[in-house]
């Protein structure tokens, strides 16, 4: 039987009730969200369930929405069921003051560096991660550069003239 988005949705609501919510299908990919404390339970269920079998973590990253009070940071998981060739997207939201999220490294070895990258750029604190430190930026950096409060430099500024290198 083909694994449809409708079926995935039913399986998830059977298991988690109304805790999984906001089902949408932008460009055909089923997207939903869950409370941040449940992220591991949802991932484990998607992994273990004999019908769903989402066992490949394609991608993991964060998005910063400064206007969403108390849910500023979104952590987005892209999962892939390689047997039935179905992809889904799963989001959790967390407040920026306490960006603590459980790590998925126990389930997926590849989550290690992806979570380090997410921590490096957004400051999401993955609880239980074996070695949560910066990966692409220098270790001395004391801010999280992909957050929206750090805009790119204004290209029209004129106070930075440099005889040697120009602007």
């Amino acid at each position, binding site marked *: 039987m083909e694994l449809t988005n409708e079926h995935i949705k039913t399986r998830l609501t059977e298991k988690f009730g109304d805790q999984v919510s906001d089902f949408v299908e*932008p*460009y055909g*990919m089923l*997207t939903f969200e869950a409370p941040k404390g449940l992220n591991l339970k949802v991932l484990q269920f998607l992994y273990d369930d004999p019908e769903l079998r989402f*066992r*490949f*973590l*394609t*991608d993991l*990253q964060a*998005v*910063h929405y400064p206007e969403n009070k108390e849910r500023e940071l979104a952590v*987005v998981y*892209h999962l892939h069921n*390689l047997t039935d*060739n179905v*992809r889904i*997207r799963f989001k959790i939201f967390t407040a920026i003051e306490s960006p603590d999220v459980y790590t998925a490294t126990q389930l*997926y*070895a*590849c989550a*290690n*560096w*992806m979570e380090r*990258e997410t921590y490096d*750029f957004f400051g999401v604190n993955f609880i239980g991660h074996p070695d949560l430190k*910066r*990966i*692409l*930026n220098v270790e001395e950096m004391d801010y999280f*550069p*992909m957050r929206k409060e750090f805009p*790119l430099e204004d290209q029209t500024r004129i106070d930075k003239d440099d005889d040697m290198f120009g602007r």
Partner: protein
Amino acid sequence: MTEDLLQHSREHNIKLPEGSIEKQTTTLNLGPTHPATHGVFQNILEVDGERIISAEATVGYIHRAFEKIAERRPLYQITPLTDRLNYCSSPINNMGWHMTCEKLLGVTTPKRVDYLRVIIMELARITDHVICNSVIGVDTGALSVFLYVMQYRELVYEIYEEICGSRLTTNIGRIGGFERNFNATAWNKLEKFLKEFPGALKEFENLLQRNRIFIDRTVGAGPITGERALNYGFTGPNLRATGVDYDVRVQTPYSSYQDFDFAIPVGTTGDVYDRWLVRNQEMWESLKIIKQAYQKIQEFKGEEAEVFHANVPEYYLPPKQEVYTKMEALIWHFKIVMGETEIPAGEVYHSVEGGNGELGFYLISDGGRSPYRLHFRRPCFIYYQAYPELIKNAMLADAVIVMSSLNLIAGEMDA
């Protein structure tokens, strides 16, 4: 043993750092600038003699904040950023990005554009694999094969030059198609490549595939099981070498790959030799695809044979000479460049089979002229974390060939 060494150093008055004899292991830096790493990444190895006990990989030496920069650039200006991810096969990255934008904007491309793209992407795959495979040769001590096949990469670069004007960082194509049609020189050069390359590839294969020295060096080096590879997020030839037949071109066909007849080569043990074999076979399959695409393009007649972009003036950057002479083109050029075209809000994930795995683009748009957030799924960033596990208990010389067989590209890893 330790006692003997301590006594020996006392007798001969040799002064060593405290505890260095008792520890009996050496900490060794492989990289960041070492000829064997083929790029800037550092590995801190703990070795006992020549055997590796543990390794720690450090990346990020050429991080250029592409994701941040992309948050201010309009869509068409992000293409040059994608060039600099996997620069051994930049056309694939460019096409992947164009297709992501097309998915977001709802643009459908004509069949001829798809086939032209397939030709370019498969040529890029050949250049990518040719480098990786010949570099495995170099690291096992066979330099001549590398120099030999480089001539043929040159032929491919000349084809790119005819189409987009540049060679390594190509910035090829536009949203909706290509900037210009392939000219007669480009087709002639493609024919020349298709005629000459198979012979060279055969010779390349003969030099390494059944070569006793090469086999002895590569068989059993850095093996990984399919299950472990999937858990580590492997994709591309490295995953297929373990026996898992996952290929984005087949699983989620894009750019009309479903119209072509080709096989997915798979390995069994996932060691260096299998990776080499898979890449080698993929080059033959790529040649098959290019020939099919070339034939299909010949079948277009009349007006269809001149199509090289979709008819979407609101997103397709018009040619510069028309901008100067035609009112329509000037208006669209202005609108696209000044960001006045309607870009729908939404989120889209699109992936293509890059040179070393599934290259994904996760694009969130809030309707402005540039993305709200753009994330690149860079395959080699994800699978490189398995490297310490692959080389554990291996010899130091094996660490070098395992690294080159993974096809690590620093530009892609660090984004």
